[in-house]
């Protein structure tokens, strides 16, 4: 028996996208395979590494632990949606400036998580940054430059607002 397909509507990075998916399709796979948005990375696929973090109605969630069907009717922001046209967002520029990445695999997840973190808390302490990024793993940097990048992003955001 062919698997039942669900017609869903996602607003991804401001664009309304209609897509037909089986119930078991993960949001991460839907974004990557059905919508071609391969910026969202899939690391562990069981909710530990944070690479697949996207913003669901503005809040960071793990897209590998969310079914695409469950996101029906909601707004999704992926790493592709963070920049303002050609200009990288303050968080993206801060990560580049502070060398907050090496291989870059975890970076999309960090960028989404930190974007939401700074929206909630525009000037976090070191401790608040650690707590905020506690659900994202980075195997290259040792986190020091990521923490610097979060503070730098806070500065850039404050300067530009």
């Amino acid at each position: 028996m062919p698997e039942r397909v669900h017609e869903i509507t996602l607003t991804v990075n401001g664009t309304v996208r209609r897509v037909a998916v089986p119930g078991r399709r993960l949001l991460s796979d839907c974004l990557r395979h059905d919508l071609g948005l391969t910026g969202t990375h899939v690391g562990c696929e069981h909710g530990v590494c944070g690479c697949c973090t996207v913003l669901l109605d503005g809040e960071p969630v793990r897209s590998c632990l969310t079914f695409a069907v469950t996101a029906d009717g909601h707004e999704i922001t992926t790493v592709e949606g963070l920049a303002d046209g050609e200009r990288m967002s303050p968080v993206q520029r801060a990560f580049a400036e502070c060398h907050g990445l090496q291989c870059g695999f975890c970076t999309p997840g960090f960028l989404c998580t930190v974007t939401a973190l700074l929206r909630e808390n525009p000037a976090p302490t070191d401790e608040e940054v650690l707590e905020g990024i506690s659900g994202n793993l980075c195997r290259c940097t040792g986190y020091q430059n990521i923490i610097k990048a979060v503070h730098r992003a806070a500065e850039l955001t404050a300067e530009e607002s």
Partner: protein
Amino acid sequence: MDFLRPTTWAEALAAKADRPEAVPIQGGTDVMVELNFDLHRPAALLDLNQVAELAEWTSEEDGRLRVGAGVPYVRLIAELGNRLPGLAQAARTVGSPQIRNRGTVGGNLGAASPAGDSHPPLLAGDAVIEVESAARGVRMIPAAEFYVGVKRSALEPDELIRAFRMSPATGPQYFSKVGTRNAMVIAVCSFAIALHPAERRVGTGIGSAAPTPRRALAAEEFLAAELDWDARLDPAVLARFGELAAEAASPIDDVRGTADYRRHAIGVMARRTLTWAWNEFRSGHFERRAG
């Protein structure tokens, strides 16, 4: 795999009655880990995300809070942190921000893992679990009777968890958890305490140190008999409380820790949480904050 998407509570109950094998899913932070690992292949999933009333909480006429099974941890912390401080502390230790944005106490109850972080504060705070079926209506199950085995609850196959009910704290409440790091860890073991000053009683909850979450009943009875509520904490009483709490555990050796370690840690956490709660109670800080 069928994906059932009720939009009302009545539809959800009807779907569960029709397909009792369907696995309910809310935030997905537990159910989906097992699916992604291919540990389970349920014939159907029952997605409760569209049932709006599950994401609401209310104050009931009897003064208790009724918190819908779909209220995520992040809202529990932000909206109910002052009234359910023990549960909010436990919620802050769940996973990471991404997990707390999606995960719920209802899901923790549905999984009924002995390591679930919600359970010890629910036990210590005398929570009651509201479950419902289309056929038999509502059942109220005290938390202490809800957990019946490893990852097994008193829920019948045609029932769904609607909410939990719990009184706002009338005294200090604390939660403590041992893990290998601060974030993204399953508890090696955990302990919750809730002071109920009006009744001169202390509630407890032990996590991840027995086949089910459980109260340390002998330790509670000991404090009810021996605790002098108008004095400083007697070191002998504190020590005996720790011993009785540790004796209430029946842990196993596993990858996260040994049984001996868990028993020891439960005693330490029992003494620590009682000391924190007692210091707050004696300082009068709790009354001022609540007032």
